[in-house]
């Protein structure tokens, strides 16, 4: 009897995670529905101006989406190659002792609070970039993206490394026995075999960059800007939510509802990336 009660309590705790998901979706959808009663969905998705707090408000999510994807792209340009090369190095070349030291240190990097990364981007990286790129504004996508890239290197490197180490040793032996160098083995045999797992690592890194808030809120500016130039400032979805939350919008106003519509958009994007990563990893596991 007591056993059963314990089990039920434990089950309720586990089930609470489902309740949280339902609550998240519920709150976002509930407030967004109120928003979409005032603003047609089609306008939200196609209008190219986002000025919800102006006297003459416009509600096009595109500039925010653009800012989000642009910072993510910059981050990926930094973290993609570096993370991949580091993963190949750690998985195929590094001596076990080096790996034992480097991996925990990389983990340490993910323990740095994002607000500190924001400080670093605004007050260290931007001034540095300004020396190289004349006329670079104090808030810009480039600096925020680069720092975000540094932030997600550990994720991409560590998850890619896991995928590559899961490749059976027999394949490496087969390649080495043919006279391939370790480099050739790494890039022509191990990496292609682990490619779904590595792709999943990249997608998870992207998903993390998309949802990252503080670095962009601090260093990329709060100006919605439909641009492809990373030297310009551009607000992301997350930066917009922070901006609104810092002000004091009355509960139930359309301005208040905008952050939920923006949040729902963000959740959907990350959800798509996560499903993609899930699918890729399932494919990888199927193969090995």
């Amino acid at each position: 009897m007591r056993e059963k009660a314990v089990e039920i309590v434990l089950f309720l705790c586990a089930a609470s995670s489902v309740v949280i998901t339902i609550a998240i979706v519920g709150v976002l959808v509930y407030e967004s529905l109120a928003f979409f009663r005032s603003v047609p969905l089609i306008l939200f998705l196609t209008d190219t101006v986002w000025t919800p707090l102006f006297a003459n408000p416009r509600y096009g999510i595109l500039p925010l989406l653009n800012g989000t994807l642009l910072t993510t792209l910059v981050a990926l340009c930094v973290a993609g190659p570096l993370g991949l090369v580091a993963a190949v190095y750690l998985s195929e070349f590094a001596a076990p002792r080096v790996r034992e030291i480097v991996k925990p240190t990389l983990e340490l990097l993910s323990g740095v609070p994002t607000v500190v990364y924001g400080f670093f981007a605004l007050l260290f990286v931007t001034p540095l970039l300004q020396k190289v790129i004349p006329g670079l504004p104090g808030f810009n996508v480039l600096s925020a993206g680069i720092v975000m890239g540094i932030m997600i290197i550990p994720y991409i490197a560590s998850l890619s490394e896991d995928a590559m180490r899961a490749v059976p040793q027999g394949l490496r032996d087969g390649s080495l026995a043919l006279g391939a160098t370790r480099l050739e083995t790494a890039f022509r045999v191990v990496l292609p075999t682990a490619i779904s797992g590595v792709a999943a690592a990249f997608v998870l890194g992207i998903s993390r960059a998309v949802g990252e808030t503080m670095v962009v809120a601090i260093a990329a500016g709060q100006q919605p800007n439909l641009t492809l130039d990373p030297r310009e400032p551009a607000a992301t979805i997350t930066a917009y939510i922070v901006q609104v939350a810092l002000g004091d919008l009355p509960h139930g106003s359309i301005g208040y509802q905008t952050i939920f519509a923006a949040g729902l958009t963000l959740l959907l994007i990350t959800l798509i990336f996560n499903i993609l990563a899930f699918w890729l990893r399932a494919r990888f596991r199927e193969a090995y």
Partner: protein
Amino acid sequence: MNQRVEVAAPVVAAGSDDARGRPIKIVNRDVNVWYGDKRALHDVSIDIPDRAVTAFIGPSGCGKSTFLRCMNRMNDTIPSARVTGTIEIDGQDIHDRSLDVVQLRARVGMVFQKPNPFAKSIYENVAYGPRIHGLARSKAELDAIVEQSLKRAALWDEAKDRLSQPGTGLSGGQQQRLCIARAIAVDPEVILMDEPASALDPIATARIEDLIDELRQNYTIVIVTHNMQQAARVSQRTAFFHLGKLVEEASTERMFTAPRDKRTQDYITGRFG
């Protein structure tokens, strides 16, 4: 370029029947292997005849695979492994600094116990070696090498219509022949086989054995097997390993009819192992 020293090479001792009169391809002297502090192989000295099949037999853990892996320096890939002694192929020391392990392994190919085709097409599996070594100067040449290698591995008829399909989609026996074709494509002189049929069914095993018998026309083959009938069927010389030591080596015929060592007798008659 690799020079083949065939002139005035010493020949395998008399009494070796089929392999008699064959020049020696590989000379091993006092080969020892340590894994960390554990000694896995004790002072093994054996000559491997050219263009013949030499079988290593013995109970599992006897060091036969460990020794096989010495001859193309595959033990290098195990960080804790240490090899001492001399191994010479055509008179050239394989541990010599002037010989890159890439060069050595291009000359001494290997087929593993578990078929390990790459996650690539059948064609790409075979073309892999020639590609990395730059052996073909044109697509036509590469095609020819792939076709020739698959023919030699007796896989061409089954594979020619599905060259672009993944090698992992083949049956176990076909996969193992693909791995043999992959090794052949690099044009080695020696092929080391580590229990190549132990993961296969009897019919696939028979095909591999036939193949090995054909291949000895062109290649020096060393095969590790725990299956004594297999050793008797495919090899001309046999060496028996026990507890990390080479106990006895002789022509296969003599080994199975008149073993000299008590341990060999016991093993062959099935008293242990």
